[in-house]
């Protein structure tokens, strides 16, 4: 047990959080909490600890919840960042059913967070920046008016600059885009190549929304003719053209001349890809590729050779006269002299493909040149506050979600191995949860994060049988305009592990789809989507083989998010 100022505090806490009678009696509980919170001897460490304990308590009524929140309000104004963040987390978790309360809290905590971001302690500043990013994932506009606070200083360490650039990239909006881009442009010529490249990628990220301004800045950067800048700019262009086809023209005009300043594998691949896919708009594309073909023997990266094969074949389709000879030479080299098996096989494959006739090649190679919906899908990943509330004020945002996932996976594997030594299990504080509230606590993760199993494979027959044997558990309508793109929808559903059993063709009237999913406890969700002709609403009916309301609700919210996303893309 940590030392909390005095023995009394410990006693009070135990009473408050262990005794079901106290919790059952609302007034008594309130008094205890009040006394604990007001404990005069509690220093900041004690306060942080108390806030941590309170996380375990689940208020029974709305009134009680707001009572507690009011009592805790003063902690949000503490001068210690640790206490403020602890209180914020408690608020976010307690008020998980009240989004407006959560937003209010995040507005209140803005001041302390920004102060921490400009704190003298670099490390504190870094932790605060990571949390700012976390908040921005859910509330993109939250820090937009404070964008100047996130400008980098030249004396700052590298890791802070990188975080700041990420934050700037995420809070950009119509009003500040001009200033933010101007600032980022300054970073692109930084002495540190890593930082310069990060800034260029950030501009590329902003370009998904503000394409014209960003492409202009990137084009100017090419004029510097520096290797580390050019290669990143070209990579950014490649990603951009795929997501925003409207900038293709500008990119194609900027490309000539770049090849002299690119030496690394990633940059070369990007350039060759661009030349292959959009070669018909770049006058000297065949001649640039010819240089690459000429030097293919001294090329060290197999990936570049593969890219070259594909690009040249694509260009051959649009400009056969200029490319035929080169293509022959390249294929000859790849098949006869190349030592890397993957490249050789790719060469052989294209050779046989060419033998099958030019129409066949066109059918296979002329895929779409851009996919705007991909960018929108990525952008729409606005996560609800509840998805990260339990991670707030922990190490998760500081590591970043992705890195944390690998760390904790490793840890779990290790924990399952040998039993922990006795000392450790003695040290973990025993559960302070009263018996009756244990159930709610354990069910929490379920209701918060529904786990749909990815490998669930329902057969159509089984689906049909189950569908007719069950009653509709939930029915609702969802606003919808225009027709449905089945492919996009199917892809999006797959991302969240919902399987498409059957679906009507695009434009069919009425349009119908049957979906199936299974969560980790084995509960099945069967869904019918129905779009009547001339109607602006999609009807959703969900059946469930085990009647559990919480999981049903979270399943429906998942489904709504996907449908909402797809609907937004179309409109």
């Amino acid at each position, binding site marked *: *047990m*940590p*030392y909390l*100022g005095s023995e009394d505090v410990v006693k009070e806490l135990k009473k408050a959080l262990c005794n079901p009678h106290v919790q059952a009696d609302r007034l008594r509980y309130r008094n205890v909490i009040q006394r604990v919170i007001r404990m005069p001897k509690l*220093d*900041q*460490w004690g306060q*942080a600890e108390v806030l941590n304990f309170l996380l375990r308590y689940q208020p029974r009524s709305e009134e009680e919840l707001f009572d507690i929140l009011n009592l805790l309000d003063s902690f949000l*104004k*503490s*001068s210690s*960042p*640790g*206490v*403020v*963040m*602890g209180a914020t987390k408690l608020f976010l978790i307690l008020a998980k059913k009240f989004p407006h309360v959560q937003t209010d809290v995040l507005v209140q905590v803005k001041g302390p967070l920004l*102060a*921490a971001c*400009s704190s*003298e*302690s*670099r*490390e*504190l500043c*870094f*932790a*605060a920046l990571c949390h700012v990013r976390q908040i921005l994932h859910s509330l993109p506009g939250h820090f937009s008016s404070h964008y*100047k606070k996130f*400008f980098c*200083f*030249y*004396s700052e360490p*590298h*890791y802070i600059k*990188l975080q700041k650039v990420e934050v700037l990239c995420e809070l950009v909006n119509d009003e500040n885009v001009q200033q933010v881009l101007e600032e980022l442009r*300054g970073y692109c*010529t*930084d*002495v540190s190549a*890593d930082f310069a490249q*990060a800034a260029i990628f950030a501009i590329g990220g902003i370009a998904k929304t503000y394409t014209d301004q960003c492409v202009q800045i990137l084009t100017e*950067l090419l*004029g*510097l*003719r*520096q290797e580390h800048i050019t290669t990143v700019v070209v990579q950014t262009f490649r990603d951009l053209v795929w997501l925003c086809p409207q900038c293709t023209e500008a990119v194609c005009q900027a490309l000539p001349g770049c090849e002299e300043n690119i030496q690394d594998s990633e940059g070369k691949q990007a350039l060759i890809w661009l030349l292959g896919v959009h070669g018909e708009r770049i006058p000297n594309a065949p001649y640039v590729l010819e240089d690459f073909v000429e030097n293919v023997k001294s090329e060290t990266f197999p990936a570049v050779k593969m890219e070259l094969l594909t690009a040249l074949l694509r260009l051959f389709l649009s400009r056969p006269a200029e490319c035929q000879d080169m293509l022959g030479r390249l294929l000859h080299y790849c098949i006869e002299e190349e030592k890397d098996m993957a490249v050789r096989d790719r060469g052989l494959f294209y050779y046989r493909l060419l033998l099958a006739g030019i129409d066949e090649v066109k059918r296979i190679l002329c895929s779409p040149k851009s996919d705007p919906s991909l960018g929108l899908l990525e952008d729409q990943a606005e996560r609800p506050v509840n998805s990260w509330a339990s991670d707030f*004020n*922990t*190490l998760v945002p*500081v*590591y970043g979600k992705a890195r944390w996932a690998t*760390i904790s996976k*490793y*840890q779990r594997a*290790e924990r399952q191995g040998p039993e922990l*030594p006795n*000392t*450790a299990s003695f*040290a973990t504080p025993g559960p302070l949860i009263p018996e009756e509230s244990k159930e709610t606590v354990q069910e929490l993760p379920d209701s918060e994060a529904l786990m749909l199993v990815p490998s669930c494979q329902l057969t159509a027959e089984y689906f049909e049988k189950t569908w007719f044997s069950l009653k509709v558990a939930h029915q609702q309508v969802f606003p919808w305009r225009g027709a449905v793109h089945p492919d996009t929808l199917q892809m999006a559903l797959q991302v969240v592990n919902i399987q498409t059993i059957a679906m009507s063709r695009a434009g069919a009237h009425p349009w119908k789809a049957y979906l199936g999913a299974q969560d980790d406890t084995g509960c099945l969700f069967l869904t019918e989507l129905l779009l009547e002709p001339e109607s602006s609403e999609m009807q959703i009916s969900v059946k469930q083989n085990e009647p559990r309301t919480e999981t049903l609700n979270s399943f429906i919210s998942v489904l709504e998010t996907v449908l909402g996303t797809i609907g937004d893309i179309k409109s």
Partner: protein
Amino acid sequence: MISQFFILSSKGDPLIYKDFRGDSGGRDVAELFYRKLTGLPGDESPVVMVTSGGHHDDRHFIHIRHSGLYLVATTSENISPFSLLELLSRLATLLGDYCGSLSEGTISRNVALVYELLDEVLDYGYVQTTSMEMLRNFIQTEAVVSKPFSLFDLSSVGLFGAETQQSKVAPSSAASRPILTSRSDQSQKNEVFLDVVERLSVLIASNGSLLKVDVQGEIRLKSFLPSGSEMRIGLTEEFCVGKSELRGYGPGIRVDEVSFHSSVLLEEFESHRILRLQPPQGELTVMRYQLSDDLPSPLPFRLFPSVQWDRGSGRLQVYLKLRCDLPPKSQALNVRLHLPLPRGVVSLSQELSGPEQKAELGEGALRWDLPRVQGGSQLSGLFQMDVPGLPGPPGQAPSTSAPLGLGPASLSFELPRHTCSGLQVRFLRLAFRPCGNANPHKWVRHLSHSDAYVIRI
């Protein structure tokens, strides 16, 4: 909850190692930390790091750098980074208080004291207390100081000492001595040091318009008085908090946000701007405040650059005029201008306006050092460079537009006896009179320094 705590020197030598829970590998963890820190890929942050594999089960390293030392805590739990970082900096302050100042030398001279302190602050990895009040009852070891402190050792007078009512000057090292622990020593020095320190960050656009001003200020107190003695700090009466409040006649001294230490009593703050507190011995941040976008006084420096760039010959000429807008009696110290240059700059020729100034090239940037700048003065420097690496269409007339990669210029400086917000300490009164001793010495100083003062070109 912390598993281990250790302090490493800047070269990675372990100075202090303490295992609180016995659930971890051993001393080589410190070595592992330093290896990880130095071998970290560029895009990962060193603040938190994780070990994985080997015989150490997974643990997180969280560290701060303080005066060249690494203070590292390890934990295997997913704990609050804010609290832990706060704890580490609090530990740094405590160690500084007890050992005089925090450095490799003082730590290695006071190993016993540091371990004693750690024993009291943390128990089984949990924080017990960090308050001076509580700790002074338990800590018995005396700090070993390398050189006995003497107020009359005036050879070490700082460039700008403190200004007091008696207009005496204290040596700059006066505050860096240990808090006295034994009662016998207490007759010697009853001193209080009060610092108003402001950090200024400014961004000026290339057309001279002000894009951002940000002042982070704090009032720091270091007290050697016996605990429990009450003191009152009077601030400027025109001090206003928030945008709307109005006090006094003039424009007032306005800050956006203020936060106080929890021990500060604010009964007289509303009426007379007086802070009352009973500080414990040691260092304490009494008040923090922020001010942005609206500065009452003019900015301390203005830079007027003009750039001539001849694309054909690759000759770059930069003329910098620096005007100091401080009041004539004030001055700025250790002014340094840092101007990043385009890649491939080879030669530099310079014409500076004063003999004590210095300019040189380094790390792709121009550095111009001005040790002392008087308020109201104007300084200039003319720099000529060759940039052969920057190709452009030849035969063009010299242009005034700056090439990419030049700028922004950033200035660093210190402004003694000056606060950018205008906040001043009116008085510092002590209610306590130690028996058998003269008045305690009170030292008050004001200081502003640059955090980031950036001027786009």
